[in-house]
């Protein structure tokens, strides 16, 4: 990427200064643990909605989705569309209002009220582990990309990000995270919109862009198919060629502008994985079961505002793939010579080629905004899980609001230091280590969704069934992951279980199904839960007397 000028640095510094001012100003109103963890239940729908979207798009996503769109096309948009919007709308009208009415701070806390403390601790420990690991992964992965954008030293990138995010999250907790996310969301969407508009203008408009995408991608697809055919036996080649003629696309069009791709696609989006894995399991699990997402809606000032925030977020989600995936497609047209191997440098290269001074700074600010909005959320939610589900639950149940605030702030500092330490440790490992930690989400999401759905929608689900189901689902996803590792397969003399390159959507489907099966069977045969537990299912009555 071309060097940043002083105007670019001015734009970046202005953005960072505005973020810090908002974060510290909000922090000056924080007086108690409730203010710190749930913003005193005072958040408006528009701030939560923008925060949900900003949190979901990380800095690495911004660059990674661009690179994947270069390789595979608009199919990556599925992760923002069918992977988010149906789940957000079902969440808005069914699950989120119920959690809000139960007046809980964390999802594991709800699971204890509905089921048992064993399930609460298990789910909290899994998510805490995931968030703590991902803090380091996100800091490092973002620092790597930030280095490619700005040329700064990688250690400086890690320390600056951790320090900035840590300071305002320490000061203001959830409220600071949400209100800075609003600014970050606006900067991110504005920066990407500007980038896309300039890119489309440069290639001559939308129609020429579409034609060029088909021409370039078709050529790449043919080269790729030739390379694959060379490695096949005669029978495999025959089957492969007959499949190629079955795809219902005009001959001149490539897969790059299709959201629905066949089972044997090289992309991470075969249609069964997208529909059944992403649309029905991962999406709902993420938007209903992920503490760093749901915590915002739990801090809404009313049940209606909690619902409205999810609906507003779903509306914004409609435009996000156009902003994060289309730059990758523009890069494909501008730099077809990069190929699949170097697709990840496509976006930084495009920024350098397309954007004039000042605008480059705005794109870097957009990238920083995407990065910071995700790191601050994981930081705050990891703190919330630790303080509420472990410290207060097992160590100091009598802790007052002032003590909770102090412990929350100290824990935030602890997680910042851990994130920095872990990011530096990861530097010594190969880049593939990121993928392993990011795959962790697919291990937990299916079982978490299963226990939440069973707990909320059925009074027959029992705590024994839920605990057994959660662990059975977890073992399933870990087992499937292991049986797909080349080293394990070689040792056992087996071929990998899955044929797609990144089968994490399939881990989620199977772990959900196994977890649900165990919950049903064990709940049927073992003892049922008392009414003080089952009343936390939807339609029951909560202890305060209101409808749960």
């Amino acid at each position, binding site marked *: 990427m071309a060097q940043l000028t002083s105007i670019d640095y001015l734009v970046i510094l202005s953005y960072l200064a505005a973020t810090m001012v908002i974060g510290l100003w909000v922090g000056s109103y924080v007086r108690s643990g409730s203010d710190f963890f749930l913003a005193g239940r005072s958040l408006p729908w528009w701030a939560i909605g923008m925060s949900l979207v900003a949190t979901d798009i990380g800095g690495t996503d911004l660059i990674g989705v661009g690179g994947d769109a270069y390789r595979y096309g608009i199919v990556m948009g599925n992760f923002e569309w069918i992977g988010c919007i149906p789940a957000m709308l079902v969440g808005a009208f069914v699950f989120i209002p119920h959690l809000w009415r139960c007046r809980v701070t964390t999802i594991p806390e709800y699971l204890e009220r509905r089921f048992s403390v064993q399930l609460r601790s298990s789910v909290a420990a899994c998510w805490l582990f995931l968030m703590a690991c991902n803090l380091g992964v996100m800091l490092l992965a973002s620092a790597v990309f930030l280095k490619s954008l700005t040329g700064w030293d990688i250690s400086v990138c890690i320390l600056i990000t951790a320090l900035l995010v840590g300071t305002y999250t320490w000061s203001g907790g959830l409220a600071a995270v949400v209100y800075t996310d609003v600014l970050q969301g606006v900067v991110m969407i504005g920066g990407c919109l500007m980038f896309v508009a300039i890119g489309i203008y440069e290639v001559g408009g939308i129609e020429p862009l579409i034609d060029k995408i088909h021409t370039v991608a078709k050529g790449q697809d043919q080269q790729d198919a030739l390379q694959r055919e060379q490695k096949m036996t005669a029978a495999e080649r025959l089957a492969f060629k007959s*499949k190629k003629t079955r795809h219902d696309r005009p001959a001149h069009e490539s897969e790059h502008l299709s959201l629905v791709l066949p089972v044997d696609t090289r992309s991470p989006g075969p*249609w069964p994985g997208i529909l059944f894995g992403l*649309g029905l399991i991962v999406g709902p699990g993420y938007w209903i079961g992920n503490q760093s997402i749901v915590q915002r809606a739990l801090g809404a000032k009313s049940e209606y505002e909690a619902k409205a925030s999810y609906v507003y977020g*779903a*509306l914004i989600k409609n435009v996000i793939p156009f902003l994060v995936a289309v730059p990758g497609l523009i890069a494909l047209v501008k730099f077809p010579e990069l190929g699949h191997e170097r697709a990840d440098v496509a976006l930084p290269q495009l920024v350098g080629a397309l954007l004039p001074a000042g605008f480059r700074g705005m794109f870097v600010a957009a990238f920083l905004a995407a990065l910071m909005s995700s790191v601050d959320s994981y930081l705050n939610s990891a703190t919330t899980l630790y303080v509420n589900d472990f410290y207060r639950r097992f160590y100091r149940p009598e802790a007052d609001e002032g003590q909770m605030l102090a412990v929350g702030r100290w824990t935030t500092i602890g997680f910042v230091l851990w994130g920095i330490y872990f990011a530096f440790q990861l530097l010594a490992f190969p880049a593939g280590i990121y993928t392993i930690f990011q795959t962790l989400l697919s291990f937990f999401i299916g079982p978490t969704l299963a226990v939440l759905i069973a707990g909320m929608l059925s009074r027959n689900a029992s705590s024994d069934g839920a605990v057994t189901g959660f662990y059975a689902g977890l073992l399933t996803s870990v087992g499937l992951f292991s049986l797909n590792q080349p080293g394990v397969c070689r040792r056992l003399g087996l071929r990998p279980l899955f044929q797609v390159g990144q089968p994490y959507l399939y881990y989620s489907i199977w772990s959900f199904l196994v977890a649900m099966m165990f919950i049903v069977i064990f709940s049927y045969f073992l003892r049922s839960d008392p009414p003080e537990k089952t009343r936390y299912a939807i339609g029951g009555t909560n202890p305060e007397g209101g409808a749960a």
Partner: protein
Amino acid sequence: MTLLHWIGDFLRHQLDLVPLSTARWLMIGLYLILMFWIIQLPSTATNPPGRQGTWRGDLKIWAWFALMFQILIYSVF
């Protein structure tokens, strides 16, 4: 080859037989089902308490907008 491999191969083969146009309709069908469900929700569940009747506050309308935009996107791409 284990039982898991056999199940995987069987499912892969069966799903491979589904035409992509049918897969596309399944995705659009998901949105249509959601639209049908949302329109049936009681107005008390989609409006702010005490302010029923104002269209701007009715979440059904905005949820429908999000879903209609999705149907358009999945019909085009």
